[in-house]
């Protein structure tokens, strides 16, 4: 039986795909939550009671207040405040901006890079394909956290460095996914037809094959964004990720860790909850996307 990847959805089919997606209520709810998180992160400067990184707005007398306490400035610390008197709600929303931004940026770059490498590998075949796939195998046999740690240990810290590290650990997934799908597409009649018409290899690869391998790629990308966000948070927690000037959720959690043993759980608990809800929502949306875009592709873990 031939594997079928759906051709890119024409605009008339998009509502259909949307209805398919919404039929799973859990996924629809996850998408709603994810949209809310995105909106809140983008609108953070407008909706937070305090700019958490404007030192003039912080009051040390407000530090380490429990959730629900009143701030000196009049508003309420719904999720408490940290050791600087920073409102946790504001800090989390600003942290989400950074976490989501780094996750999305690194995924986009890795997607572009891995996609190109995978397409070239599949189309060229031969020794080049062999070499690239050996590299991919080699890299995927090591856990991403280890590779990222090593890279950061070598190149040092900073926002750009962590994006590089996240791109580096992700590209191989895309390269492998795209290559697998492109190998199937390569044998199709339309590619033969394009070749007969003497189109350049570049045109065939990017204009003909690429659109047909997008659906599985989108699915992998969704899951990878969650993965990238979690990895960035872990690295930041270990003190090797984001610099103190760009406090992502991971840094907020690390900062709260010091206060955990004295019972002030909220400083690291709530940023962690925000991280968890974001990751779960993305994973649920990704799972559903996979079912809708490609019913034949079974789950990564066989469930």
């Amino acid at each position, binding site marked *: 039986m031939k594997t079928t990847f759906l051709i890119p959805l024409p605009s008339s089919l998009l509502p259909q795909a949307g209805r398919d997606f919404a039929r799973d209520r859990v996924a629809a709810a996850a998408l709603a939550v994810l949209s809310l998180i995105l909106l809140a992160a983008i609108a953070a400067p407008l909706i937070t009671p305090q700019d958490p990184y404007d030192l003039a707005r912080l009051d040390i007398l407000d530090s380490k207040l429990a959730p629900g306490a009143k701030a000196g400035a009049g508003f309420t610390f719904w999720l408490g405040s940290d050791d600087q008197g920073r409102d946790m709600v504001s800090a989390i929303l600003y942290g989400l901006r950074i976490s989501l931004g780094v996750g999305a940026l690194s995924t986009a770059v890795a997607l572009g890079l891995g996609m190109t490498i995978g397409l070239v590998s599949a189309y060229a075949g031969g020794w080049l394909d062999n070499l690239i796939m050996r590299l991919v195998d080699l890299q995927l046999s090591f856990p991403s956290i280890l590779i990222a740690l*090593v890279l950061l*240990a070598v190149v040092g810290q900073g926002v750009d460095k962590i994006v590089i590290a996240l791109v580096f650990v992700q590209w191989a997934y895309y390269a492998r996914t795209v290559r697998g799908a492109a190998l199937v597409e390569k044998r199709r009649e339309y590619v033969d037809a394009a070749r007969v018409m003497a189109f350049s290899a570049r045109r065939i690869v990017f204009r003909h094959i690429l659109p047909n391998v997008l659906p599985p790629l989108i699915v992998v990308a969704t899951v990878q964004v969650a993965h990238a966000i979690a990895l960035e948070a*872990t690295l930041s927690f270990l003190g090797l990720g984001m610099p103190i000037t760009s406090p992502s959720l991971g840094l907020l959690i690390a900062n709260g860790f010091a206060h*955990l043993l004295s019972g002030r759980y909220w400083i690291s608990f709530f940023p962690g909850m925000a991280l968890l809800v974001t990751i*779960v929502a993305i994973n649920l949306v990704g799972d559903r996307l996979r079912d809708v875009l490609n019913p034949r592709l079974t789950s990564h*873990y*066989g469930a």
Partner: protein
Amino acid sequence: MLVFAFKRLAQSIAVLFVMSALVFVGVYAIGNPVDILINPQADQAEIAAATRALGLDQPLWNQYWTFVSGALAGDLGKSFAANIPAVRLILERMPATLELALAAMVIAVVLGIPLGLWAGLKPDSVSGRVIMAGSILGFSLPTFWVGLLLIMVFSVWLGWLPPTGRGETVTVLGVPVSFLTWDGLKHLFMPAMNLALFKLSLLIRLTRAGTREALAQDYVRFARAKGLSMERVVRVHVLKNIMIPIVTVTGLEFGSVIAFAIVTETIFAWPGMGKLLIDSINVLDRPVIVAYLLIIVLIFVLINLIVDLAYTALDPRVRLAGRSA
């Protein structure tokens, strides 16, 4: 079989060389070790002398040769911070990490296989669904945050378990271990649970998927039609057949457990080699970083080799496929 083993061994050695070259280029060629090794107040003459002493004025391939021959002899330089050979420092910390990783693996296997089996046998029951939902959560929860939650609940709120350290150890065959003392067990429990969580979720899913697949096979239906009890069918026919992928994955994942121990050890201040790596990165103790990397690459390659060979021995089909190809 022998030919296969030999080929596989040659491959592993090739991978080791490639990785050692990558580590070498990454650590020695991209960064300049002189900046870190030499006192910043040193003048030009001192820098030149130190560069010569470290062999950094040699051509790159020459340096690589020195590095590899040193590595083969187990000499990867001295730790700047501790001033003892880096390899020895890591080997001293290794038993703690191995103990933690083994404990985590045992927890994952002992809990994961029965739970996965249950979820696979009763996929539509409430308990089956709860198990699956739990495993999805286990995949999504960042390891380090689960560690924090464990400390928060069991150490801060309940006060049952100590939050950090390894506790009292007993020396068995020259290796200190925690799991033989009550105090050591109390220290081991939380880090091991934390490290096990991800693998537990993975094993649940794997076992469940394998069980469901096996249940739909003809030989299971035939065994049931023959009048065998469900219990016997599961124990003899289903379990036996899903064991091969489970054993493989469990083996392969052992390496990643050791790598993930970096995070768990940092949270629980467990004195293993993962925590040593983070500490070394923070003080730029390069020889230790390099030694850690080479040792972990070696562990990974060894695990992959052993699992591959075991797999081939367990499942003759793999061997046959390899021969015809």
